[in-house]
């Protein structure tokens, strides 16, 4: 008799030999320690297995029910972007020596992963202008929440201030996390498209552990970090910046502008949108927090022959050593996506990343100007990177339905998160050609003019 399942190697003969060796008559005997009361009666009520070709067809069909960015021209951003991913990225992360490995606890046979993470950490430090970066977090949002918790713990203060210019989901997760840890989260309002600095100043106090700002913010606008740092400093609060790593190719690094911690998501650099995940959080800090930051860190050292090698280091911070005293409960991270991102940054290199960022900036500005020339109102008063908000005469939801008919995925509806049903957040990446932008504007005109 042949086996039914291709992942299961035991033949009848193998099973027989092992059972005989164990001196039991059936596999069932090996489950005798599960009390009969709690044994499953009958089978799990899930559909039967599909052979590979059948399953492939079914799942292909299921995936085809989703419209995707290969078929449509997309202007949706709001934290997840359609960017150029060099072909080499997927080829390199598909080396199964990388993707079928576990966390590199045995450094002698994990030098590849460890070195790649060491290089990733270096690249994150370069972009953010910080001293130390870990080897990734779940995503930018949870990374921000971890930074807030770390600030509260190290300042021994009870409150963090977060701008309403920070991604709404990031604020939502921060609220959930803060509830667990028992600190307060206060939001700082907006002055049109950027953080209201007067409000910030009035909310800041000696109980403020940190001020949290997004750079560029959720509306694409570029906040003046230097100014905000001054206010934070006056009250001795830490300064946490959540930054788009692509934008950091052109914008002054948060590190130079006084950030104590910089967090964000590497998705714009080499990671597919994939319906929102897995992406890859990053976490970079000033060296004074090195021994407190969450997650895994790779460090350089030598072997017994004096050769350079890499190991997981500063593990005394982590849950498997500290248990309930750990600074965070994080264990798994997003290593493979950090690798994707490192490969992408390597491919783009020092100049490519600037060129790509510059195109984002120029294309978004081109589109905003074009819209303005057609009579649309662009809400951003400050300079913006690759996203901006446009006011429409109709609800965004209606407009997007019409745009879809022309093969365009429109922008993000600010209705649910900000109560602005007629404001659309539009992202323009280097992937959008002038032709696509022009077509979008034309369609938009047609839609709003009925």
């Amino acid at each position, binding site marked *: 008799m042949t086996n039914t399942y291709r992942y299961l190697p035991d033949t009848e003969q193998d099973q027989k030999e092992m059972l005989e060796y164990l001196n039991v008559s059936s596999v069932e005997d090996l489950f005798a320690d599960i009390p009969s009361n709690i044994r499953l009666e009958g089978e799990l009520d899930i559909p039967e297995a599909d052979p590979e070709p059948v399953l492939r067809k079914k799942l292909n069909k299921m995936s085809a029910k989703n419209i995707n960015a290969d078929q449509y021209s997309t202007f949706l951003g709001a934290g997840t972007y359609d960017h150029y991913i060099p072909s080499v990225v997927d080829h390199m992360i598909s080396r199964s020596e990388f993707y079928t490995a576990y966390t590199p606890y045995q450094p002698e046979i994990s030098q590849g992963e460890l070195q790649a993470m060491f290089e990733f950490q270096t690249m994150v430090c370069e972009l953010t202008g910080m001293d130390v970066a870990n080897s990734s977090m779940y995503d930018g949002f949870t990374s921000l929440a971890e930074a807030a918790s770390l600030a509260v713990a190290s300042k021994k203060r009870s409150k963090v201030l977060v701008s309403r210019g920070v991604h709404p989901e990031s604020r939502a997760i921060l609220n959930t996390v803060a509830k667990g840890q028992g600190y307060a989260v206060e939001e700082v309002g907006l002055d049109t498209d950027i953080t209201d600095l007067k409000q910030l100043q009035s909310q800041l106090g000696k109980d403020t552990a940190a001020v949290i700002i997004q750079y560029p913010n959720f509306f694409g606008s570029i906040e003046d970090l230097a100014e905000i740092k001054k206010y934070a400093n006056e009250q001795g609060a830490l300064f946490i910046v959540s930054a788009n790593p692509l934008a950091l190719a052109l914008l002054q690094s948060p590190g130079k502008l006084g950030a104590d911690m910089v967090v964000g998501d590497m998705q714009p650099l080499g990671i597919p949108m994939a319906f929102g995940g897995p992406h890859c959080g990053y976490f970079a800090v000033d060296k004074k927090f090195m021994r407190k930051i969450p997650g895994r860190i790779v460090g350089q050292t030598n072997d017994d022959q004096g050769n350079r090698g890499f*190991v997981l280091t500063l593990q005394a911070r982590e849950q498997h050593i500290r248990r309930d005293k750990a600074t965070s409960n994080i264990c798994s991270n997003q290593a*493979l996506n950090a690798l994707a991102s490192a490969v992408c940054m390597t491919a783009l290199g020092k100049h490519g990343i600037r060129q790509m960022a510059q195109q984002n900036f120029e294309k978004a500005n081109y589109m905003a100007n074009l819209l303005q020339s057609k009579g649309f109102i662009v809400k951003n008063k400050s300079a913006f990177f690759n996203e901006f908000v446009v006011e429409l005469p109709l609800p965004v939801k209606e407009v997007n339905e019409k745009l879809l008919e022309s093969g365009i995925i429109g922008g993000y509806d600010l209705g649910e998160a900000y109560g602005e049903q007629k404001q659309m957040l539009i992202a323009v990446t280097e992937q959008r050609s002038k032709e696509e932008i022009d077509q979008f504007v034309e369609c938009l005109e047609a839609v709003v003019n009925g």
Partner: protein
Amino acid sequence: MVEYNDLIFEISRPGRVGYSLPESDVESIDLESKLPKHLIRDEEDAADLPEVSELQLVRHYTALSNKNHGIDNGFYPLGSCTMKYNPKINEDIARLPGFSRIHPYQQPETAQGALELLYNLQEELAVITGMDAISLQPSAGAQGEWTGLMMVKAYHEKNGENRKKVLVPDSAHGTNPASASVAGFETTTIPSNKDGLVDLEELKKYLDSDTAALMLTNPNTLGLFETEIEEIAAVVHEAGGLLYYDGANANAILGKTTPGAMGFDIVHLNLHKTFTTPHGGGGPGAGPVGVKENLIPYLPVPRIEKDGEKYVLNSNYPLSIGRVKGYHGNFGILVRAYTYIRTMGTEGLRQVSEGAVLHANYLRKRLEEHFDSPYTQLCKHEFVLSGSRQKKLGVRTLDMAKRLLDFGYHPPTIYFPLNVEEGLMIEPTETESKETMDAFADAMIQIAKEVEENPDIVLDAPHTTVVGRLDEVQAARKPVVRYTKEKDSEKEKQTVKS
């Protein structure tokens, strides 16, 4: 083979590129016309990313991959991590443009296939765990634990109680107490009995009106089934506490029993263990959470539901603990797990656990004579040996683990759980053949002999890896956690000197 030890930064040369972008087709704009100077990053200040050609990039990462051991390279019996085969079709399906090139904020009407997959996965995981509802949001086991504990907190608060204490057995994974602490609880460790199981009488002493929950893994981290689980559940519930199931070891029970049947109220699963999604060198994983009926109101939002023939997102749950992860969780991982479950079906999943348990018992018996085996009852999907016999001869478990590297094996989990001296935790998984397990057993037995006859070969191991034992103390004392150019010039100086 040429030895390759360069960092990507060391092979970088100004002017080389590894990408191709079209020229901009819109007018160029000077950043300075829009932004104050202090917010602009000048060319001199540019992030110093490497400059290499595409082939150099490929050679670099290929060389690195050659210095890495994955499941595809060889046996990986890392206990508690379920290092089973990661199927290739899972990778293909996750990369379909209809799954990988879709945006989380697309209108649900335009992402019905993705939502259908998530909905089906929720339904199937609910059956597999015996729970009433599932949230797919958490990105990993630890985040699942924390999500579950936040629900525990919300549940007790709703009942007007402020219970502060979470109990964990001494064999628990480190994330259990860490997650409890992050969720605002205090952890109390309860001792195991001589059989490696929860001591029911001891447990009773710890239960009181301050007990929020007991966290358990079953089979536990020793690979042993908690045979008194029904009684445990009863006493915890009697004290008003909830029972939390850490699904790290779910590979042992598929189709045999469910956490729901055992009396658990909350479950998390590690899809990167039981459900074959790759560990990726440390992640990404996924840690869905399941609950019984009475905890459904507290699940994270948005929830994925079916309304007639349509799949929708619903955030209208006022008692929800809120959002725990961006968007819809680690979707790409969820796609892989779903593909696997569809590949195996009911019968296949049952055979998975049967194979896992048969293999663990077989391998344990093959090794029992040569190593101390602190627990002798049936084991489930994994078992723990002790290296204390070898320690007496001056060789520690760490040394034996390093010696295994010379045989081409990834060593078992060592020094865990904490309640076994010189522990070796071995999980062969169902996807390994008998020949592989036999060869591994032979290697282990040979090492046990070496410890007696020629301990130096074990003490000096590994002998065949690209680096020898690394100085972890130096790494932690004088941390070098990034590359800096200065290092380069120092190195040149040193080279000049020598």
